[in-house]
C-alpha cells in the first residue's frame, strides 16, 4: 500500500515540476521525493547546462518557497557563506557608549564589581543583534522553509566542504559566541557540481547522489516543447535528433540542454520550418562554443540531418 502511495507521489513530483516548465526524468523525480521524505540534501552532478540549477529553481517555484542561492567560488569562507559579525556597527556602538561608560561604571566601588558590569556589557556585542546572516544562516532562519541552492560546490575549497557538513546532516550551525542555531523548518538543499574536483566522502555520504546526464531523445523533445512553445513538431524532432548525433562526436564541449533550447529559440526566430544544412551551418555557433568544434562538426552536418530525419521515420 505504501508502495502505491510512493509511485503516485513520485508522479506528483514529476507533474508539479512539469507545471514549472521543468521536465524531470523519473530518477530526478524520485530523488526530489526522497529528499523530502528522509530530509536529505541532493548532490546533483553532471555536465554543464543540463539543468542542475534549474532543478532547484523549479522545486522552489513548485512548492512556492523562497530560493536562497549560494554561489561557490575559490576562497569562499565562513564570513561570506554563513554569518559575519557586523563589526562596523559594533565599533560604532562602542564609540557612542564610550561616554556612557563612566556612568555605567560609576556605581561600582571596586574593580571587581566594575568587571562584572563590564562583562554583561561585553556579551551584548556578541548577540543576534550584531550578526549579519549570510545565505546559509538565512536558509536556516526561514520560518516556512526554503530551497537552498549551493551552486557549483566543486569550485569551493575543500575546507568549505567541512563547514557545510554540520548544516547538511543536522540542519544547524554552531556560532561559537552564540551557540547552535537550528533550522526552524529544514530547507530542501540542492548542491550542484560539475565534478571539477572530487568531493570528499563525508560530503557525499550526507547526500543523495543524483547524476543528470544528457537526456534521452524523447525527454529532450518534451523539454523543448515546454520551453519553446512556438516550435513545430517536425522541426523539434529533427533538431533534437541532430543534436543527439552531434553529441556522438568527440568535441571539446558537447552541446547540452541549455544549448538545445537556445538553438530552438533561434530556429523559431529564423522561422525555420525544417532543418536544412544552410540554416544549420549558419547557426552552428549557437550549439558549439569552440571554433575547433565547429570545424569538426561542419562537414558532418548534411549526414547528421539525413540521419535525424531517418530516425524520425522509425522513431
Amino acid at each position, binding site marked *: 500500500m*505504501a*508502495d*502505491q*502511495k*510512493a*509511485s503516485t507521489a*513520485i508522479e506528483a513530483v514529476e507533474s508539479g515540476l512539469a507545471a514549472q516548465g521543468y521536465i524531470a526524468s*523519473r*530518477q530526478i523525480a*524520485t*530523488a526530489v*521525493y*526522497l529528499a523530502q*521524505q*528522509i530530509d*536529505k540534501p541532493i548532490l546533483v*552532478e553532471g555536465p554543464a547546462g543540463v539543468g542542475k540549477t534549474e532543478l532547484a529553481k523549479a522545486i522552489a517555484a513548485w512548492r512556492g518557497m523562497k530560493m536562497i542561492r549560494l554561489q561557490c567560488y575559490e576562497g569562499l569562507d565562513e564570513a561570506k557563506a554563513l554569518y559575519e*559579525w557586523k*563589526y562596523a556597527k*559594533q*565599533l560604532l556602538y*562602542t*564609540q557612542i557608549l*564610550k561616554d556612557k561608560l563612566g556612568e555605567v561604571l560609576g556605581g561600582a566601588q571596586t574593580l571587581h564589581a566594575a568587571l562584572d558590569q563590564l562583562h554583561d556589557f*561585553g556579551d551584548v*556585542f*556578541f548577540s543576534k543583534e550584531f550578526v549579519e546572516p549570510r545565505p546559509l544562516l538565512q536558509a536556516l532562519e526561514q520560518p516556512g522553509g526554503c530551497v537552498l541552492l549551493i551552486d557549483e560546490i566543486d569550485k569551493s*575549497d*575543500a*575546507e568549505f566542504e567541512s563547514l557545510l557538513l554540520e548544516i547538511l546532516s543536522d540542519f544547524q550551525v554552531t556560532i561559537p559566541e552564540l551557540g547552535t542555531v537550528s533550522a526552524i523548518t529544514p530547507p530542501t538543499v540542492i548542491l550542484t557540481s560539475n565534478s571539477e574536483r*572530487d568531493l570528499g*566522502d563525508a560530503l*557525499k*555520504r550526507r547526500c*543523495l*547522489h*543524483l*547524476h543528470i*546526464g544528457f537526456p534521452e531523445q524523447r525527454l529532450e523533445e518534451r523539454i523543448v516543447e515546454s520551453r519553446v512553445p512556438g516550435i513545430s513538431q517536425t522541426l523539434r524532432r529533427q533538431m533534437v535528433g541532430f543534436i543527439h548525433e552531434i553529441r556522438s562526436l568527440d568535441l571539446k564541449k558537447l552541446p547540452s540542454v541549455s544549448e538545445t533550447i537556445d538553438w530552438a529559440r533561434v530556429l523559431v526566430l529564423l522561422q525555420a520550418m525544417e532543418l536544412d544544412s544552410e540554416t544549420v551551418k549558419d547557426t552552428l555557433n549557437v550549439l558549439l562554443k569552440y571554433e575547433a568544434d565547429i570545424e569538426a562538426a561542419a562537414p558532418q552536418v548534411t549526414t547528421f540531418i539525413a540521419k535525424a530525419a531517418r530516425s524520425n521515420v522509425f522513431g
Partner: protein
Amino acid sequence: MRENLHRFFRAARGVGVHVSPAESIDAMRAVAQVGISDRTILRDTLLLTLAKSQDEKLALGDCFDLFFSQPERRQDQPEAGNDDASQDADQSPSSSSASESGEGQHPEALGPLAQMLLSQDRNAVAAAIASASGAASLSDIRYSTQRGIFSSRILDAMGLQRLRDDLDGLTATNPALAERLRAALDALREAVRDTVSQGLALYAREEAENLRNEILRNAPLARIERRQIAEMRALIRQIARRLRERYSKPRKRQRRGHLDVRRTLRRNAAWGGVPFLTAWKRKHRDRPKIVALCDVSGSVAQVSDFFLLLVHSLHEVVDDVRSFAFSSHLIEVSDILEAKSPEEAMAEIMSKVGFGSSDYGSSLADFEKQFMSALTPQTTVIVLGDARSNNLDPRADVLRRISERSKRLVWLNPEGRLAWGFGDSEMPRYATFCTVVRQCATAQQLERAVSDIVAIYR
C-alpha cells in the same frame, strides 16, 4: 525483504561500491518510504542512496539487475499453497519414506524432489533452488574454487540423497521414468551450477579483486605479464588517486603573515577597537617543486611505463612539477603529460625518446645544459632509472652539481640492491650524491616512495 536488502548491500560491496553501515541505514529508510513492489523505483532509490559517483551508479545498476533477476527466497511465506511438497524438500528428505521399490511406479511414492522434477514446474524448481542456496549460505562464497562445494551443498539441501534412492528404485521397476528423472537431474545440476556462478559473480568480486590486487601490488613491475598490464595500470591509477586525495588537501600548518586589520578590529570591537588581540594574515608555505627525470630506455621500458604513469599523477597532486624523459638524450615532457591522457602521453613520449639504449652521461649533460635553471634550493629531484649506462661515461659530476643545486635528490631504482654495481650499473657512484636511494620494483614500493616525497611538503 530486510534480509534481502542486506544481501544486496553485500553484493554492492562486491562490485566495489562502498556501503558503510550509515549508508545502508539511509538506504533502508529510503526503501521504507518507497516500498519494494515497484522495481524501477526501488532501483532508482538504491542508486540514489548508495552510489556516490557515476561509475558506482553503473556498477550498482548492473548489480541490481543481476541480483533481482534471481528468484526471491520464499522464506516469508513458507507454504506457498500450490506446491507445498516442494517447500519442505530441504527439511525432510525422508519424510514420505513409505515407498517401497515395488510401488515405485507411482510418482506419488517418490520423494518430493523427484516429484517436483517430474512435474516440470519450473517456478517451483527455481524457488527451491533459491531457498536451498539460502540454506547453504551461498552468499558466503568467495573464490571460484568453492564452486563445487557450494553446488553439492545446495543439491544436498534440496534432497539429492532421497532422489538418488528414488532413482535406484526406479531403474529396477520403471526404467523409462528413471531415464526421465535422470535427465531432469542433469538439468537441475546445470541450473544449480548457474546459480552458484551467479552467486560468485555477486558476492565474490570484492575478495577476488583484493587478492589479485595484493598479488599485483607486490609483483615486480618488470615481470608483469602482458595481460596484467591493464590491471596494473588501473592499480597505479588507484594509487595515484589515493595520493591525490591524501595530499591535495590544503596544507595545514600555515605561517603568520601581515596583520589582518579587518579581523583585528572585529575581534577587539568590545574593547572600543583597542587591539588587545591581534589577527594575522596567513602566508602560504612553499609550494612543492619537483623535477622528475625518467629513464625510458629499452632495459627499463616496461617499468618506465608505470613510472610515467605515476609522474603523470604527480602532475595532478603537486603544482610545480617538471618532468623529463631520457634514454640516449633528454627532453622535457611536462607539457605532454599535462595536456594528454596518460595513455596518449606515454605513447608520445615513448615514440620521441623511448626504447633507445640508455646513456645517463649525455642525458645528464643535456639536463645541465638546458634545464639547470629549473632547480632551486626548494626542488626535489627524482630520478627513476636503473643507472645502467652501457659502460659510457656516467658523468657523476653532473649529478653532483644537480644535487648541490637542489634540496633533495631521490633515486628510485627498479633493480634490487644486489644488482647495484654489477655489470654496467653505476648506482654506487651516483648514490653518493643522492639524499635517498630506494629500490622501487613493485607498485607498493612505488607508492611508498612517491608518498614520502610528497609528504615532506606538508
